[in-house]
């Protein structure tokens, strides 16, 4: 029952926060966005040097094989400083899918840890909403390997990825858990069309069209037809990492708002003297406490057993979404007009939080997931 960080974890936290504060000054961030750069390659290289990118890479591939807590600490800083590096895609989700999945995967995993590759998972399809088993993309066996056809409607960080993990159906019907296989494809594979777009949080995602994408045998990750469970586990790890990101972003928005209430004057006194605003920010403070508690629980649960693991993650995703959207919206409201401009970070935090809510299933989706799990447990 001890929820405190170890000394090493605390050092990592300090270093991540310092990095964010120094390298991600808001004015510089806005200038980068204006130039159409979600993040600087230089920063990615820095992060590689700091060892962050290798946190989830096995030791024998040069990685640190760290616990979910280290990932949480990094992601909190990413959220707090609006960093747009594809850390969760490449360094949290992808490594889960590439571990013990053959020599090509290991090579790529080492490259991820070294900052030399960025990999996204193409988990969403049209008409599938947030159902991971809704895989209509087909992978047909060919003499030399596989041929993939289909559409992936949304790939997080897909616009900056060098490679993709692509779930495709080798058997069964759309919606089945069985029959989903995972394939590795580099972004420049012929027939793979990457259609990037910018999200409201300035992350560059993509849609993929697979038009006769031909892959070799070595592109298959793990057992054929058995990719579903592994995909779900990897996405859960990504969900938890993004909760930490949301926590960092909402606490930053809360901190900015509290200091605004203390310093901004209207009607001859700081607006923080008005009781209605005091009670509002108290509710925001409570929301942050709830989100931090849920993020801790979800992080711990990642290493735990089912069904507690899934129930905690589902509950955490829903509650962090709900509380963080409340904080993000009220942060703007309490700032008034300036909170609505692009010139203050406050609106960018809300947009980030909206995108985190939507990623891998929104609050409602995960609440329903919890409802199902609770019925099964009862």
């Amino acid at each position: 029952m001890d929820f405190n960080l170890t000394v090493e974890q605390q050092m990592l936290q300090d270093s991540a926060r310092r990095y964010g504060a120094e390298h991600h000054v808001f004015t510089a961030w806005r200038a980068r966005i204006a130039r159409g750069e979600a993040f600087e390659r230089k920063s990615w290289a820095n992060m590689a040097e700091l060892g962050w990118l290798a946190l989830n890479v096995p030791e024998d591939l040069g990685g640190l094989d760290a616990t979910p807590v280290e990932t949480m600490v990094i992601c909190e800083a990413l959220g707090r400083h609006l960093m747009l590096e594809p850390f969760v895609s490449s360094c949290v989700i992808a490594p889960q899918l590439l571990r013990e999945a053959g020599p090509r995967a290991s090579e790529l995993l080492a490259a991820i840890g070294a900052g030399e590759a960025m990999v996204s998972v193409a988990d969403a399809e049209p008409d599938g909403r947030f159902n991971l088993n809704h895989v209509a993309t087909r992978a047909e066996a060919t003499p030399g390997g596989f041929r993939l056809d289909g559409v992936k409607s949304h790939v997080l960080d897909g616009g900056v990825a060098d490679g993709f993990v692509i779930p495709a159906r080798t058997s069964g019907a759309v919606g089945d858990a069985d029959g989903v296989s995972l394939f590795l494809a580099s972004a420049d594979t012929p027939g793979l069309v990457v259609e990037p777009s910018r999200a409201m949080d300035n992350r560059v995602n993509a849609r993929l069209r697979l038009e006769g994408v031909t892959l070799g045998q070595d592109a298959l990750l793990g057992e054929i037809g058995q990719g579903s469970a592994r995909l779900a586990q990897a996405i859960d790890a990504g969900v938890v990492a993004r909760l930490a990101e949301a926590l960092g972003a909402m606490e930053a928005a809360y901190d900015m708002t509290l200091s605004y209430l203390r310093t901004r004057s209207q009607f001859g006194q700081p607006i923080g003297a008005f009781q209605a605003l005091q009670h509002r920010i108290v509710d925001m403070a409570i929301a942050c406490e709830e989100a931090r508690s849920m993020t801790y629980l979800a992080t711990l649960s990642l290493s735990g057993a089912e069904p507690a693991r899934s129930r905690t993650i589902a509950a955490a995703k829903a509650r962090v979404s709900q509380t963080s959207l409340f904080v993000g919206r009220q942060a703007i409201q309490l700032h008034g007009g300036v909170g609505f401009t692009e010139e203050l970070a406050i609106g960018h935090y809300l947009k980030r939080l909206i995108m985190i809510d939507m990623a891998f299933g929104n609050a409602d989706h995960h609440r329903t997931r919890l409802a199902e799990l609770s019925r099964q447990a009862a």
Partner: protein
Amino acid sequence: MLKPAAIFDPLDIMNLDLTPEQQAFRDEVRAFFVENTPQSFKARVRAGMRLEPAEFVTWQKLLHARGWGAPSWPKMYGGTGWDPTQLYIFETEASKADAPVQFHQGLELIGPIIFTFGSEAQKAKYLPAIITGDDWWCQGYSEPGAGSDLASLSTRAVRDGDHYVISGQKAWTSYAHVANRMFLLARTDPDARKQAGISLFLVDMDTPGITVRPVVTMDEIHHTNEVFLDAVRLPVTALLGEEGKGWGYGKVLLDRERGVTAATTTRLAQQLRGARAAAATARVGEGCLLDDPRIADRLAQLELEVMALEGMVMRTMAEAASGQDSGPRASMIKVRWSELLQEVTEFWTELQGYDAMHFGAVNNAPLPGPDPWAAKGMLYSRVTSIYGGSNEIQRNIIARRALGL
């Protein structure tokens, strides 16, 4: 009286037992909106977004050509002279056709002040161009240090012979970048108590000394600006009414506020329709999102809250028609309208799922998926609980004026 024979559906609001004249009027405006609302406006209007300025002008000119350029103005100033029921019919029919609300700063904010307090010269010079759409007015009230607390404004106007020289800074000046006219408040007597000593001026935007700095908002659209006034020299004829009385002129707008809120509020039916259509078209597996009873219930919840608000608007219009005071209901409607606009557009965005994440083009490539109007409308909606007196200020007003607290 309460008419028990009325056949009423709050979401198809015109099924009230109208007189034959009112029915004919309804049919006439309905046909106009159906035939004339540009197709290209509809998706954005439905999402609660504002149109581009040029489109607003097009729309104003269309209405003007039909003789309906100023639906809420008296006939003697070029308005239609409609009664509240007609106005209400006009707005609800516009809503059903996904037609936009007219841009209001000339028509509803300064126009009525000019025709109530302005000189004959000012009326002749300014009123017609508002109706034709040839003039675009912006409002110079807010200042960096005086947002909700308008009485503490510090822009100064100093009399210098036949001129006033104005210096200061205005904030949140919507569409200053397209306006050719501005009405602004400035302090003419620095020694008077807060609300006294403030005067209202009518300014041409090309007067030397005016600089407009764009402020981009979180929906990535350029609506608003800062305006810097550096020794802007105006003839004394730019003063509206009497010196030092500018603060009081705004009060004429309070009585008109009911009509403006009604016009805006009836548009919530548009956003509801958009969200429902999104749920009906979003395929999930073999069905659509609307098949999920949880989704259907959430839509119904929003729908019934919109109905309650519609009922409040209808009572307000009925009271206006019979000359009764509606107390603080206009403030209440503003609060509820903005809250509901936010909730409906948030839910609509949720319904779009991953489509809502495809927000902007990269390297001018076409967007994968539909245009992100719902998401943009959702972001824009955040300001509606802030502008025109934030919802917190509205609650203060209600508590003080109506409840006596």
